């Protein structure tokens, strides 16, 4: 069993978790809520992408862009309808509202779109590297032959693109700088003349755009159905909290850790324990919350 190959798989998995987790964690940082309905935003994006690719004669990348726009619009509308009016009530009512909204959205999607899984028609090419020496340690090989597929490259490429764009946004643009200021201290930001509602809206849109992208990426790899996003929400949440809730850079790190752990635990856990690999993300989440609730980014999460 080649470690290198499994690391590649882990990085791919981590990539689409990361795209989604950034959106999730930005909402957490700015709006101060855990949005449990966020998985449904992925589903919405995936369906928008599928519909576009299926009905219009446009190439897939255009469909992806449409999905991102669709996700952004959906996110803003939902926020305005459900979350903005209760912004002042604190994290717990917001969390509960998002849980209710998630149930409603998921079933609404099922009602409208039906229950069958749909697929994107894509072609995949595989690039294989052979002749890589095995560097054996016990039963494991550190290197060994490996392959990547065009799908892998697209997913990782999209993720890297998102990271770069995000970094640019947060450091170079007024909106991004205001976002960071607001994440640090909302009152101070307001005093300094930041239009906090506008920033919140921007974050909702950004989160929706990222969810749309992540939704399509997941859908290309698997399929689209009403449960697509929901089945990923706990991984996204685990990644965001692992990275330090509210920190986009932390979320990226958290996502790759989750991706690697999922991949490596599936590959290397002893026989009887392999079944645990699906629970691994949650195990990490619980451990992080216990040991270092502030996550990797080490933001102060103090009570009182």
């Amino acid at each position, binding site marked *: 069993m080649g470690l290198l190959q*499994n690391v590649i798989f882990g990085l791919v998995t981590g990539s689409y978790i990361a795209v989604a987790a950034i959106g999730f964690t930005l909402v957490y940082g700015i709006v101060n809520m855990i949005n449990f309905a966020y998985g449904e935003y992925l589903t919405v994006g995936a369906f928008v992408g599928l519909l576009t690719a299926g009905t219009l004669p446009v190439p897939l990348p255009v469909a992806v862009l449409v999905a991102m726009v669709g996700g952004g619009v959906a996110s803003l509308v939902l926020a305005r309808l459900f979350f903005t009016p209760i912004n002042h009530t604190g994290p717990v009512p917001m969390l509960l509202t998002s849980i209710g909204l998630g149930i409603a959205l998921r079933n609404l999607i099922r009602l409208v779109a039906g229950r069958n899984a749909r697929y994107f028609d894509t072609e995949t090419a595989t690039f294989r590297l052979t002749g890589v020496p095995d560097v054996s340690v016990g039963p494991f090989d550190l290197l060994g032959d490996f392959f990547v597929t065009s799908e892998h490259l697209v997913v990782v490429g999209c993720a890297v693109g998102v990271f770069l764009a995000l970094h640019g946004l947060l450091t170079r643009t007024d909106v991004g700088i205001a976002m960071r200021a607001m994440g640090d201290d909302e009152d101070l930001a307001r005093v300094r003349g930041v239009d906090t509602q506008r920033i919140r809206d921007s974050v909702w849109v950004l989160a929706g755009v990222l969810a749309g992208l992540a939704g399509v990426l997941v859908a290309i790899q698997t399929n689209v159905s009403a449960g697509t996003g929901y089945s990923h929400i706990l991984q996204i949440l685990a990644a965001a909290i692992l990275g330090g809730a509210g920190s986009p850079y932390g979320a990226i790190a958290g996502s790759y850790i989750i991706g690697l752990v999922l991949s490596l635990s599936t590959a290397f856990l002893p026989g009887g324990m392999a079944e645990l690999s699906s629970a691994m993300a949650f195990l990490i989440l619980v451990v992080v919350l216990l040991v270092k609730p502030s996550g990797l980014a080490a933001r102060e999460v103090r009570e009182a």
Partner: protein
Amino acid sequence: MASDNGKTTRRAVLKGVGAGGLVGMAGCLGVEGGGEGGTEGSGEGTGTTGGSTSGGGSPDSIVFGQPAAQTGQWDFLQPGVSQATDAALQNINDAGGPLDTEVELVRRDTGVNPQEARTVVTQLVENDGASAILGLFSSEINPLWDFLQEQRTPVVTPWPGSTFLDTRGGDKGTPENLDDDEWVWRTVVGDTVHTAGNAKRTLDEGYETIGVINGNTEGERSYVEGFLAPYEAEGGSVAQRVEVGLGESSYQSALERLFGADFDAFLVSLPQESAITMLSDWADGGYGGQPVLSDTLGTQAVIDQVGDALNGAWAASPGQSGPNYDTFEQAFQSAGDAEVNAWSPPAWDAMHVVALAIERAGEATPEAIERNLGPVSGGEGTAVSTFAEGKEALANGEEVNFEGAATPTNFTRHGNVFGSVTISVAKNGEFTEAEVIPAEDVRGFVEEGEY
């Protein structure tokens, strides 16, 4: 038959000695005292009946209940089963219906959740007056086993492959005697049996070592266990087995682990969507090897999504080799645009045996249906493929033997069916039937009385 013309209580009154009357409790509780002590075992007593059926002549209405997966884990399979059920219903009612009465079907969502299923079954039996239940999954039947026995209403279901049912259910070969009955029947071949057909094919093709990848739910595990028992008994061995969760976005690590071992063929037991993801990953990774697919995977969608890499893969399906599959298929196609799945033909069969049981019994009570499911499905009678044929034969005083779409529908003493197993091989973008392993060959793998 004549012995059971009166109204019967659905629940056995086993005890009733010396009870005092608690009169006037809230008005809604009828309290019975004394009078029918010690009728242990007969399971019969006079009392109220919850259903709307009555003995003798044409009942006002006949209701079948269908617990369904309109939401929940397997909801994507429901359209194929609903459409098959509706097609059968149409077919039955077009022929005048059992006892010249139109059958009404009430379908209620269980979300594949045992708790909901319990409520749904109660409501179907007690409020909707269903005289038979035509649904329920293994994951609902197993935890509700005792409860279903108490209902004393036949459950004839197209879904469960579970080995749990191998030695449970049916009339134990004694149709008239209800005491030993276990009220659950399935018109789908159990995993123990048809998997044996697949195992046989795998061995016949010379694959003596396999890898196994399966999902972690009851259906997937039970398939693998059904496969491995005869496979290993006949000399095959398992090089590696990997169990995975369903609906994951990637199975590449699991494949990496699986193919770390040395084997020629690998068995896939996953629901369709997860299997497509997994097989796409497998194709992309170029792992090679002969794929052996579980019954549910012989579908066009699998080939369409996975592509040419799947050429040569075979699926063994028990669900479409009944003597009258064509009759079913025709009716199914004209009933809507849902895709046929492995449980559609069994759903058709279930409707038919129940309707025929009513026609033969001359009444539509649950007990009467239970007594007649065995007689109309097996034995010496005139072979019939539709309700209309059966109704006519019965009217002529003949016995009938329903030959179904999924299997010949000959219930074993445990309420199970045997059938031949169809091997379909993927070739040039579609599955083509390559071989039919006759029921008799498969039967050899299963001990008499153990199924």
